[in-house]
């Protein structure tokens, strides 16, 4: 396949802080994401204060609580896969990876179904300030989950082709994916409270 070579010519020099470059880069990127979601959440909250009457009563809390739980389980699956890598246990790693993938996809499925029902009931982006905020913010989050699922899909395929193993380098690659995934989970924990519960 075409993407094999690149990896090995990166010089392995010690970094100034002792931190891996990619991990540092990912944390910096997450700082950016914090601001991005803060802006969007700020937009949502502003719409909410402008029209407190367009409440969230149309939303289905039990199903979404289940969906939140799905995302929490998936986060746990990621750390389990990570610890499997640390143990050098490829089989267990793969199992937890697939579990994460399925859970992520389940989350998206439930969210799409929620959208379908809401739109069927004529709750649209255009129908209220709450609708504007709800679809935009949850949609952005859903897009992040989608990106994460695709990313993990690539890793799983590479694992099946033995191009992703439990060595130290791939350990770092998976840890970086994990940081992204947990962050998306964290965002959802916040969104669940702000949009659905309050």
């Amino acid at each position: 396949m075409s993407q094999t070579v690149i990896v090995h010519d990166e010089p392995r020099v010690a970094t100034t802080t002792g931190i891996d470059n990619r991990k540092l880069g990912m944390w910096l990127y997450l700082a950016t994401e914090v601001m991005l979601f803060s802006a969007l959440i700020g937009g949502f909250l502003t719409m909410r204060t402008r029209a407190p009457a367009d409440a969230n009563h149309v939303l289905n809390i039990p199903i979404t609580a289940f969906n939140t739980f799905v995302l929490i389980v998936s986060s746990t699956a990621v750390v389990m896969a990570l610890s499997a890598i640390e143990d050098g246990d490829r089989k267990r790693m793969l199992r937890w990876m697939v579990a994460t993938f399925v859970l992520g996809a389940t989350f998206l499925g439930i969210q799409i179904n929620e959208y379908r029902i809401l739109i069927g009931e004529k709750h649209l982006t255009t129908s209220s300030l709450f609708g504007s905020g709800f679809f935009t913010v949850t949609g952005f989050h859903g897009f992040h989950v989608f990106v994460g699922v695709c990313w993990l899909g690539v890793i799983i395929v590479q694992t099946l082709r033995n191009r992703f193993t439990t060595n130290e380098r791939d350990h770092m690659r998976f840890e970086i994916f994990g940081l992204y995934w947990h962050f998306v989970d964290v965002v959802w924990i916040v969104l669940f409270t702000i949009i659905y519960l309050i």
Partner: protein
Amino acid sequence: MTTSTTSVAVERRGWMRHGATSWRDYFTFNTDHKVIGVQYVVMAFTFFLIGGLMAEVIRAQLIKPGNTLVSPNLYNELFSLHGTIMIFMWVIPVFTGLANYIIPVHVGANDMAFPKLNAFSFWLALLGGIIMMVSFVTGGNASGWSAYPPLSEQTGIGQTLWAVALILIGFSSIFAAINLLVTIMNMRARGMTLMRMPLFAWSMIATSIIILLGTPALAGALALLIMDRVAGTQFFKATGDPLMWQNLFWFYSHPAVYIMILPGFGIISETVPVFSRKPIFGYKMIAFSSMAIAIFGFLVWAHHMFSSGMNPLLRIPFMITSMIIAVPTGVKIFSWLATLWGGHLRFTTSMLFTLGFISMFVIGGISGIFLASIPIDIHVNDTYFVVAHLHYVLFGGSVMAIFAGLYFWYPKITGRMLNETWGKIHFWMTLIGFNITFLPMHALGLEGMPRRVVTYAPEFALGNLIASLGAFLLAAGTLPFVYNAVISLVRGKVAGDNPWQSLTLEWTLSSPPPIHNFPEPPTVDSDPYGYGKPLVRRVPPAPRQEAPVPGGE
């Protein structure tokens, strides 16, 4: 790698390239930070010329009241795109380009931390720039570079393209910032503690932090604007909250002025000691003031909204922070003055632009204090006073610093010197043209001329005529530079490794530097400002115990 590391070369990695031997390599997806740096600078300068041309059309329209050179709608599109291009496709990317070229060498690294991401950032910026130009052709943004809704929700389809382009450019800039931060934090030469870094590196840390934390707020606001325009949401419509755009927009766009000036501060902090033959005065204060600006710059944004419908009480804290933010900037200016004072000044073109920078930027800084004071700001907000202020900061400041940097590093990048005579003609035409253009605008604004108008009351005719004539001189002044930069590539005097006798690491390398920069990893035992008598060179620094920097520097 078997390639010799002492000569310029190019490596092929699939469809990617690393390094350049001919001009063709500059049109490839190239992962060499030096190639990317040049790509950025050339792209940005091209957009500078495009944006400048727009400015000339604007000034030609305003040469007399009631002029009908361009239609009002085209006029609105022109100044909107002029602003957007100059900020997002000229000043920000040209600094990114210079930092790309210089920072890895400054800190003693062989490349940026993520070479592929680096190349991706450049091509993303170019894509954004192209979409921006396309948006102009399709009937573009006619609501100013600040694109206040609800107006920006009713303008043509080009406004959506404009927003998409800005999101792309924004993410390009975020990736570049991550790259620079990781490079500076993680890839410094042995012995280079934070306090031994060149000040340009400090300023890029501060700049990158602002980009990292500010740009996503703009991206979020643009995303909401696109949702409003495309998906029918109501965030910024009259039923929603148009003021929310202003908050989100300025939350990024005020810090963005520091994105556009801090790298300039960094460049000036390099050129002043070199051409004064003196150590920089107050290294730590300059470094810390950059960081102070980066953080406090986020707490002043609402001073752009003093005359808006915002909660009147909220204006007060923002006035105080806006006043105080002038202090760290003042510290820098006084430190540069103190560096000059008692030096042995060498008036190269780079030094002339450096002095021009200090002189012009101070004027912009002083008018900034006027704008921080709410009662004055209420009167001059959205007038030509603001136009004058922002050009003194961004042209008299940033652009002068950019030219100081270009004249300074051109020999390193190309291996040849720029012609000094043409350089001085460039400088004087720029300085004089600039002041003729923008000085009268202060008075125009105070007397009652609003900005963003296609025509104006007859009593402002004289001031506008002077400004327009100055703008033509200013534009003509750019031509010597273009000629000089092109002709010197072949005819310029060979530069040698260190034409300015500078002490930063890039001057220890050949000009241009070899493909992986340092044949052997450099080691550093002091900051790079050890100019002056008594010669401290080769003498170890005083046996004062350097406290180790937390985090394992």
